[in-house]
């Protein structure tokens, strides 16, 4: 079929389509059913988290709690509050540093071409696809002396190591997002600044950085969610004092001691920060998501 048919002065098919109520009903019906299926876990998590230990153990899963209680949340918060704080202490500096490095790297790769850049960039990107198991054994032997040393200074060494690791392995994606963003900035803008005598840093500071806000928002949201949700580095590079929330939640669920109301309340506590970010800044979240598919 040829897609480039001459467009004839025929009224568009629009009215004909709206005159098919059956089709519209089917479309909305499909969407509503799919939405309900997607929301089943949300319903279950919510009602379970508000039940008492006794009710969780005895009644069916699908009924709303006969008496609503915050017991699950209190217990879960007692068990997880320290790890929640750890995750915050980890995710804020790591996200900030990731964004700074990503912005500078992206600026260099988008606006300063030098020989070999076309080979170096894909080689950098490969780092975001590897299974981290493939670097885990050297990583742990490499970082353990550092962690012991920092612990000796009575600082949380595990967190410093985790921050470092997240910044390094975040370099590919943050560089990619900023590079794609800066490629859209017209070269003429920078050339004008260059003629006025601005150098590398002058161009970055006065021309590139002031228009970088959307790029920063996308990268910060992306790294925030990724680092908050990360598990493998968290479980191998932390000690009980520095465990991030995902590791603590997995421990909570793995032990048979915690009742399901506590587990579900814990899941909500662990999910809340990224969920809020997603609900309020979802637009940028999706942009980061799509940037992950390389071509951006």
């Amino acid at each position: 079929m040829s897609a480039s048919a001459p467009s004839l002065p025929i009224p568009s098919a629009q009215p004909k389509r709206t005159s098919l109520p059956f089709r519209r009903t089917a479309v909305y019906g499909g969407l509503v059913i799919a939405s309900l299926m997607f929301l089943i876990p949300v319903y279950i998590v919510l009602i379970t988290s508000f039940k008492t230990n006794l009710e969780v153990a005895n009644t069916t899963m699908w009924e709303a709690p006969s008496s609503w209680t915050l017991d699950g949340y209190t217990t879960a918060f007692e068990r997880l509050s320290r790890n929640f704080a750890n995750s915050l202490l980890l995710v804020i500096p790591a996200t900030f540093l990731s964004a700074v490095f990503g912005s500078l790297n992206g600026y260099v790769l988008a606006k300063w071409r030098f020989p070999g850049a076309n080979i170096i960039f894909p080689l950098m990107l490969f780092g975001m696809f590897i299974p981290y198991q493939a670097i885990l054994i050297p990583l742990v032997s490499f970082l353990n002396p550092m962690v012991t040393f920092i612990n000796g200074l009575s600082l949380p060494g595990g967190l410093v190591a985790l921050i470092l690791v997240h910044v390094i392995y975040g370099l590919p994606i943050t560089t990619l997002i900023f590079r794609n963003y800066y490629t859209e900035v017209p070269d003429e803008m920078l050339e004008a600044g260059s003629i006025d005598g601005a150098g590398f840093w002058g161009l970055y500071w006065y021309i590139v950085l002031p228009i970088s806000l959307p790029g920063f928002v996308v990268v910060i949201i992306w790294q925030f969610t990724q680092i908050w949700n990360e598990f493998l580095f968290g479980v191998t590079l932390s000690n009980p004092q520095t465990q991030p929330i995902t590791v603590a939640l997995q421990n909570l669920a793995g032990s048979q001691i915690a009742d399901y109301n506590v587990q579900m309340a814990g899941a909500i506590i662990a999910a809340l920060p990224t969920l809020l970010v997603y609900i309020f800044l979802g637009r940028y979240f999706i942009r980061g998501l799509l940037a992950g598919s390389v071509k951006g």
Partner: protein
Amino acid sequence: MIKNNGQVMALLVLLPSILLLGLFVYGFIGWTAYTSLTDSNGLQQLSGLPSNFVQLRNYSDLFNGSLNERFRIDIVNTLFFTLLFILVCLVLGLTLAILLDQKIQGETVFRTIFLFPMALSFVVTGVVWKWLFNPERGINSLPELIGLPGSDFRWFISEEQWLPFNWQQMPTFLTMFALGLVIYFALRWYAKKRAQWAAFAGAIALLLLMLITFDVPRQALPLISEEHGFNLALFAVVIAAGWQMSGYTMAMYLAGLRGISDDLREAARVDGAGEFGVYRYVVLPLLQPITLSAVIILGHISLKIFDLVYTMGGDTNLFIDMPGLNMYLTTFRGQQFGMGAAIATVMLIMVAFVIVPYLVTSFRTEDKR
């Protein structure tokens, strides 16, 4: 592109990142690969003994040793899981995207619902679905709410297995897969009138076909005799992971659909295509590159999946075990660093098979632009 004395500074700014990634990605991969050729373990480390170089023994043990059945189960699980997971995400993602593309009221609400699981960690997903797949009261009892009989499927602890096959047939299956790929490329080159390339691929296809006919792969690589198959417990993982990731596929497809101009669709309608025809002949072909991207993104996620199965199944549920979890347990619980490194290297090779061609073609087309 700017050219002034900032060039040197630009390189200096990029250099730390290049060096860090050089060490932490490529240096460490090399280190892991080397470790995988040794018998390094916790006992040696404690007693200060050096590890011994054992060549490929860890690998032959993994694929053919009597103690490492768990790894073979993992490989089979990963392959079935990856296939099914990609299929579910593609079908569901495309369906939802097409539904949302019908000029829907409240599109933002629907989109938010389909995409929010993406913001969660696999640990949260695992905790939640483990509760839902609770065989006595979970999803199984849902039909009882409307008076239908409940199900007694055991979900992630189900012991049922489909498609059992002997591990010895694995080389044959891999050769068949390679044959399929070669035939695909032969046809593509033939269609593009690159006769020489097509003939070359055709010759290789013929060779592979002969190898399979005479059962060479199996005899060339004698493997341990062991039954493996598709564990039905994997359905639970596919549903949980699909719940989390199909919104992502939907977002990719939706971005693609929005990129197709209305004029193009209108032209097809003028040509007499019905609504179905518009999708069949105009929209879907244009979405093909997105499908490829999605397959690669989803594929590399599923090949290295770890936290979800760890949370759902714990240390010992072999029905949903995966190489990523096995590597973690072998290395950090079992303290067998050499063996763990070998598992990690196999994982890396599997992921590289998916990712490297993708990166290479991505940047080749970008250069042409």
